[in-house]
């Protein structure tokens, strides 16, 4: 076994917040070995960010270490005073933060920012430090000529590279990355992951990588530590933890992933919501959500059991008595790993007549010289009863299309037809009333999409009030409680305010609000991307059930192709306001034709250590197309498979398909 660099024992961090104590880290223990990448994975509120901030002595003002120890190279980090941190923080333990947009000083050139870090921690001369800064820029894949540029001249992915360069400028031993790719698009994420892996190997760094995304974990980590309710519940080599998770939480988390599940079947869900750390937690923190919990889980906190030499789990299922009674958890194997490649399917919609049809749609923001085309000549049809997904990166115009269909923003050209009737024109009162009842929207962020100052009762019945869809108060109340039951919430909750609900419950409220209008068509704008992993499966299942029950049609807007694959019948890929490819979902995965679709597919981190991203995956470069003479068009290559290409490319694609 290699040398331990950093070791955390029974660490406890408490915060005092509005007169209450929040136990953010409750006895976490982990070891970081030399020259490895350790991923800490956990949901929001699991304490993973607090844990790592504590590791570099940056706990927020109102937080304090109340127990345990952190040892780094013989130094007790938990007992250091602020001035003693100077030779360690940034020099020996460096950190990369989540948001590259705010991590750089906008008034300083990027080269100077890297050099500043070098000067702070070494005593190189001016020339030597400039030389080193330039070398670092090359190392993270940015040309050294851009030394004198300012951060605003770089894109998000480039800025994250610069942040990484500043972090490694002082040759640290430990690099802590706090969700470094969460704010980035999937193709950029793949590049940053590769870069981090390369740097880690080259410099022999020990990396702690914090993330909530199991796909990222499978792709970067040598070992993984799973965090739940302020504790490390399971640690072990990535392959082993993914294939044979022992803790019920890890197991459930992996089983609930749509990427590893079979399409058409109901997703495995983890019931309930993560615990509130203001409350005292007794026994195993996960037991209220574990249908297979045992009596002892309720009473006693489990100790850490060894599973294999380098794999430990904090669960009673590893106790000899439990093994004797319920079997050895080590015999388990996660289903769905090592998934077979996609089989092209011939999907055909149930009807020929489209429910919604978008023809050559263009949307423009601003006027005159400031005008910006957000959507440019997009056409697609959605048939009754299907789930159609629009997939693209941030800024691709997918949400804009959804809002244009909702008549929230005006269109600049083209047509939107719903049941054959024009939508993008002035509606009469009666038409608006009908349209708002038939077409509804579900939003991305359940925290932002509910009015905090209104009671649930009002939020759900808002649509009813607007169009007087009830005869009397009793009927309205009955409708509200029926809608709440449909989404799995108790009708008694109607008198509460939104802040009393968790993220998943709030998303259910958002769905109930749309559902009460009895719509036929629902636009779901990234309804799961802001939710915790353990909650996503619940919402996906709910959406699928409601689709069956109410014969709904969905327009699903998303940025994550791997999740979309599980739920959609057909997928349209959108790039910078133009649709580049559209195909039935499995067909798209089996035969991606457009280079952009291909790069997107290559960049998806699958939650399966056997399917690591290839080292060579490159970002999409629009200059590969030569559209100067041969103009591209929206072409149907196979029945139902469309691609935006010119004649020459179409011929190539056809050849490739045969």
């Amino acid at each position, binding site marked *: 076994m290699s040398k331990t660099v950093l070791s955390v024992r029974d660490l406890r961090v408490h915060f005092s917040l*509005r007169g209450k104590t929040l136990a953010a880290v409750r006895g976490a223990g982990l070891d970081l070995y030399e020259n490895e990448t350790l991923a800490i994975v956990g949901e929001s509120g699991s304490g993973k960010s607090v844990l790592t901030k504590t590791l570099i002595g940056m706990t927020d003002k109102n937080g304090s270490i109340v127990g345990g120890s952190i040892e780094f190279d013989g130094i007790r980090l938990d007992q250091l005073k602020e001035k003693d941190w100077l030779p360690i923080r940034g020099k020996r333990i460096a950190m990369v933060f989540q948001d590259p947009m705010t991590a750089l000083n906008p008034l300083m050139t990027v080269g100077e920012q890297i050099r500043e870090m070098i000067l702070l921690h070494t005593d190189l001369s001016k020339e030597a430090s400039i030389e080193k800064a330039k070398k670092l820029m090359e190392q993270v894949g940015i040309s050294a000529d851009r030394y004198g540029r300012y951060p605003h001249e770089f894109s998000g992915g480039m800025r994250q590279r610069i942040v990484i360069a500043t972090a490694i400028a002082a040759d640290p031993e430990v690099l802590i990355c706090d969700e470094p790719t969460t704010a980035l698009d999937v193709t950029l994420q793949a590049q940053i992951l590769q870069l981090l892996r390369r740097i880690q190997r080259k410099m022999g760094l020990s990396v702690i990588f914090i993330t909530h995304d199991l796909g990222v974990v499978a792709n970067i980590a040598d070992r993984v530590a799973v965090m739940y309710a302020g504790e490390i519940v399971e640690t072990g080599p990535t392959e082993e933890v993914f294939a044979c998770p022992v803790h019920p939480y890890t197991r459930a988390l992996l089983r609930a992933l749509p990427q590893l599940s079979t399409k058409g079947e109901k997703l495995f869900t983890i019931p309930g*919501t993560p615990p509130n750390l203001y409350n005292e937690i007794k026994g195993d923190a996960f037991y209220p959500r574990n249908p297979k*919990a045992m*009596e002892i889980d309720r009473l006693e906190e489990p100790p*850490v059991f*060894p599973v294999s030499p380098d794999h430990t789990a904090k669960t009673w299922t590893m*106790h000899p008595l439990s093994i004797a009674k319920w079997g050895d958890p080590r015999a388990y194997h996660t289903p769905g790993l090592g998934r077979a490649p996609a089989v092209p399917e011939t999907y055909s919609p149930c009807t020929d007549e489209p429910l919604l049809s978008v023809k050559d749609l263009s949307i423009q923001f601003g006027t005159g010289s400031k005008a910006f085309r957000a959507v440019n000549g997009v056409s697609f049809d959605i048939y009754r009863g299907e789930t159609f997904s629009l997939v693209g990166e941030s800024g691709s115009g997918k949400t804009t299309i959804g809002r244009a269909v909702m008549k929230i923003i005006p269109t600049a050209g083209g047509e939107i037809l719903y049941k054959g009737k024009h939508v993008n024109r002035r509606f009469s009162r009666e038409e608006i009333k009908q349209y708002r009842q038939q077409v509804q929207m579900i939003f991305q962020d359940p925290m932002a999409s509910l009015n905090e*100052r209104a009671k649930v009762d009002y939020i759900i019945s808002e649509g009813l009030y607007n169009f007087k869809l009830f005869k009397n108060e009793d009927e309205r109340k009955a409708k509200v409680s029926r809608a709440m039951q449909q989404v799995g919430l108790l009708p008694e909750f109607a008198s509460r305010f939104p*802040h009393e609900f968790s993220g998943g419950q709030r998303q259910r409220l958002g769905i109930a609000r749309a559902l009460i209008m009895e719509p036929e068509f629902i636009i779901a704008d990234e309804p799961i991307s802001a939710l915790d992993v353990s909650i996503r499966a619940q919402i996906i299942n709910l959406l699928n059930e409601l689709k069956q029950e109410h014969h709904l049609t969905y327009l699903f807007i998303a940025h994550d192709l791997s999740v979309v694959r599980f739920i959609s019948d057909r997928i349209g890929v959108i790039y910078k306001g133009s649709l580049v490819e559209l195909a039935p979902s499995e067909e798209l995965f089996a035969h991606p034709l457009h280079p952009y679709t291909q790069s997107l597919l290559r960049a998806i981190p699958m939650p399966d250590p056997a399917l690591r991203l290839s080292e060579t995956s490159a970002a999409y470069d629009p200059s590969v197309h030569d559209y100067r003479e041969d103009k591209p068009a929206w072409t149907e290559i196979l029945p139902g498979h469309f691609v935006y290409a010119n004649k020459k490319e179409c011929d190539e694609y056809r050849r490739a398909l045969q």
Partner: protein
Amino acid sequence: MNVCKPNLKAALSESLFERIPFDPEKSELTGYSNYSYWQSTFRTFFKKRSSVLLLTIMCAFVLMSLLYPMICEMIPGWETSYRNPNFAETGSATWNLAPCAEHLFGTDNIGRDMWSRTWYGTRTSLLLGFVIAFFDVTLGTIAGALWGYVRRIDRFMTELYNIVTNIPQTVYLVLFTYILRPSFWTIVLAMCLTGWLSIARFVRNRVVAIRENEYNIASQCLGTPLFRILIKNIVPYIVSIIIMEVALTIPYSIGSEVFLSYINLGLPLDVVSLGNLVSVGKNSFEVYPFQLIYPTIILSFVTVSFYIVGNRFADASDPRNHI
């Protein structure tokens, strides 16, 4: 790692490893945040001792100015004694008395009791402040909410604001009270005519910040009419601003009345107000300084406490200060 202790194994009985029934309600139980906006606002506000003290002073002054005239009129005989602010005993013996047990603030140049005049004056000034604040803030909030939410009128309102606020308010005040007959409502009109605009501007800036929130778009998708969006989605988020604006407009209005009375354009002299008391007091300041000093002390306390309490409340209502 602290691996399972051996003695634990012996202590555990097999029955502890039975499955327990799953309780779906319990699994959902603990997920929500216990944060409540108003509770946190008040807790933050009351955490500072000085805020509580100033609020007490503020309430005491308001109560005193309400109660004193009321008691005066209720108790028989008081109305026709020196406790009536306009009652003056004949004879110069009671003129310009220094403060004593019977006349706590002394008497003025025709023998009227300064203590009762001060409280009657405070009542008039506070009433003026409240009325102006009511009209200013009501108008300002409605206009500001529309200005912020409806993009079409933004340009017009901004230009209107620029034109109107480029001329100092003092000019409007002096002009109006000069043209119209000096009276309570003249001052209210002069103050409100331009005062609402700056409040509207302030409200507008906050509305612009919350206009793009997703819950507003959700309301639009549900077909909620503009009026209901403003009432339900916008105004509840600016209540703290409204309260603060009320608290700041009151001392400002009182101050303006004092200023107008000082240059003899304020309320008619037969109305007892803090402005008139100060205005009259300054004439005899060199001989009988208490006639100016006492009303001024009360005036300062009223305006300063309103001002500070308003500011403190604004700070407390900012969620960033809720720790």
